């Protein structure tokens, strides 16, 4: 029943409030739990959740913030990545400093509890409108999060990779990793987020990543979702450009169960640039929902969004791309494109661009298409002796690589290429 998980979470909150760790972000969290209590889990009656139904996911019984039982070997396997990187490891939603490599130069990676309280308090979940209860739910329990603080003028070359691990070998696990990324003035960093589960029970992860970009900051974010079929993943991502800064966000979904990405970007200073790229390759009964919002709050900003989906089997997809151009945001340039290819008759996708423009001197464009693989291209390749199956793969590949091409980090791109290659086999 939908109320059960909700009730047990609220109960859990009340129990936690009696523990010493509860002092952290207490006001923020209390506000968040009341918002969640009032709103409850989103249902399909909610406009933004019309096509994504959490009902079956929340009907299950979960261990909440259960203790880790991973062996060192398990961790090694789960966090294997052929990339020279800093590893930030969460187990069942809880940041584990001892498992993580946190001796990075130019950046501090610390648990909320011991990090600079001022920074955490000043930025985490600050001024968030809780119109989506999933964010509120994460924030309410955000005592075991981590602060990734990139110091002014520092360029952190190695990607900082957050692993959201779930141990679902003996029970269903509900996990809520929380991350605050602050990129100080003239600093740059690359943050990767990967969710991986071990076991055959259900993983339900509700992650929240809040990123703040100061003047001249640059942040590249990659969300790589290639987990087990039983992994249901809600990722709330808030990027706030406080000063003139650039962000580059890529969301790639290759496997999982139900996946919902909320990516909200606020361009809160003049001359900001935001790039949003996405790729979802779906098969079987997968469901992937990408909701994006680019809020052009200030003049002279640029945003460019490209999402591509390829859906096979009975999979379903949702793309909802909002662009707000506020009254003062003159000289806005905002572009958006969503292209979907359906490989099977049972696959379907709902795509909806939503532009709300209140300024008059702006350049905006958007386009959404859904279709099949180009039959002319198929015929061309087949007429040269390439079999139907291989021809299909080539074309799918080409579409996927169009997005991959935009991945700037070489090792990461090579890794993704390999994962996609594997996925298309």
């Amino acid at each position: 029943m939908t109320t059960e998980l909700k009730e047990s979470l609220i109960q859990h909150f009340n129990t936690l409030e009696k523990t010493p760790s509860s002092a952290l972000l207490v006001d923020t969290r209390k506000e968040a739990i009341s918002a969640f209590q009032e709103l409850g889990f989103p249902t399909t009656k909610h406009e933004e959740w019309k096509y994504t139904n959490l009902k079956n996911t929340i009907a299950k019984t979960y261990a909440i913030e259960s203790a880790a039982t991973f062996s060192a070997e398990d961790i090694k396997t789960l966090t294997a990545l052929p990339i020279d990187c800093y590893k930030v490891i969460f187990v069942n939603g809880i940041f584990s400093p001892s498992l993580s490599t946190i001796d990075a130069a130019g950046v501090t990676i610390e648990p909320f509890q011991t990090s600079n309280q001022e920074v955490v308090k000043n930025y985490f979940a600050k001024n968030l409108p809780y119109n989506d209860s999933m964010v509120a739910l994460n924030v309410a329990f955000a005592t075991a999060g981590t602060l990734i603080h990139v110091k002014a003028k520092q360029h952190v070359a190695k990607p900082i990779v957050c692993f959201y691990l779930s141990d679902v070998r003996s029970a269903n696990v509900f996990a809520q990793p929380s991350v605050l990324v602050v990129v100080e003035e003239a600093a740059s960093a690359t943050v990767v987020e990967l969710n991986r589960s071990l076991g055959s029970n259900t993983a339900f992860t509700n992650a929240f990543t809040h990123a703040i970009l100061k003047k001249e900051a640059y942040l590249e974010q990659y969300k790589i979702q290639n987990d087990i079929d039983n992994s249901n993943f809600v990722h709330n991502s808030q990027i706030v450009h406080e000063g003139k800064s650039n962000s580059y966000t890529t969301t790639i979904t290759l496997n999982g169960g139900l996946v919902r990405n909320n990516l909200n970007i606020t361009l809160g200073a003049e001359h900001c640039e935001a790039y949003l790229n996405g790729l979802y390759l779906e098969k079987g009964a997968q469901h992937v929902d990408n909701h994006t919002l680019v809020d052009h709050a200030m003049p002279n900003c640029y945003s460019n969004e490209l999402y591509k989906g390829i859906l096979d089997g009975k999979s379903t997809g949702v793309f909802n791309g909002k662009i707000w151009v506020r009254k003062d945001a003159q000289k806005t340039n905002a572009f958006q494109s969503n292209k979907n290819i359906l490989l099977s008759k049972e696959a379907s996708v709902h795509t909806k661009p939503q532009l709300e423009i209140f300024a008059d001197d702006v350049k905006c464009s958007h386009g959404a298409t859904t279709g099949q693989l180009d039959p002319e291209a198929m015929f061309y390749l087949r007429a040269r002796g390439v079999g139907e199956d291989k021809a299909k793969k080539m074309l799918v590949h080409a579409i996927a690589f169009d997005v991959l091409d935009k991945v700037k980090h070489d090792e990461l791109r090579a890794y993704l290429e390999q994962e996609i290659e594997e996925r298309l086999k």
Partner: protein
Amino acid sequence: MLSIKNLHARIEEKEILRGINLEVKAGEVHAIMGPNGSGKSTLASVLAGRSDYEVTSGSVTLNGKDLLDLSPEDRAREGVFLAFQYPIEIPGVSTINFMKTAVNEIREYRGQETMDAVSFLKLMKEKMKLVEIDESLLKRALNEGFSGGEKKRNEIFQMAMLEPSLAILDETDSGLDIDALRIVANGVNKLKTPNNATIVVTHYQRLLDYIIPDFVHVLYKGRIVKSGTKELALELEEKGYDWIKAEADAQTV
């Protein structure tokens, strides 16, 4: 080698091929001419296996094998090659990349060993020279941003790579400048052996100065209404199609 008997084909209720008969023997070059819309490209597409067209009656065999029964890829593997009148662009797929797959799938079909990267490269270099095409072009997405002439040259390059037993060139000459025309025609001539055959679809005599046909056929309203030798092409160049149309229309009335 190729035997087309009483071939009828239609698209969306519209009958376009209305009884084509054509015999092509190994070592021969046949030219097919005819006014716009007469069905030349349709014939080429039907031979290559485009599924938009429905064959309503007739038969096509290649070396005794029923072609109409085969998928487009199997026709290619049996040795059919169609150089498209309008080669399409395929973003994200380079010529080199898909040629490697094509060559090896064809070899596999024929029970030959697949080609390793080194031998493939060697073959490619050799064929590139033949049609004087630049490697950088082949590394780019197929035909994307290619000039009209480059697209046509790329078609002939692929033909050279695949060494078909039956090549059908659909207006490969259109859009080529004089030098390119000579290069493409040269390529086609060099690929000619006593064991393969070529069908060239063209509107212009100038191509036939380079690729000398053994036979010339005129297609009109879905039928071959006149066949002759290379002199027929010269006659058409001089007199146009009206006299043939008149002859043919008189017969069908």
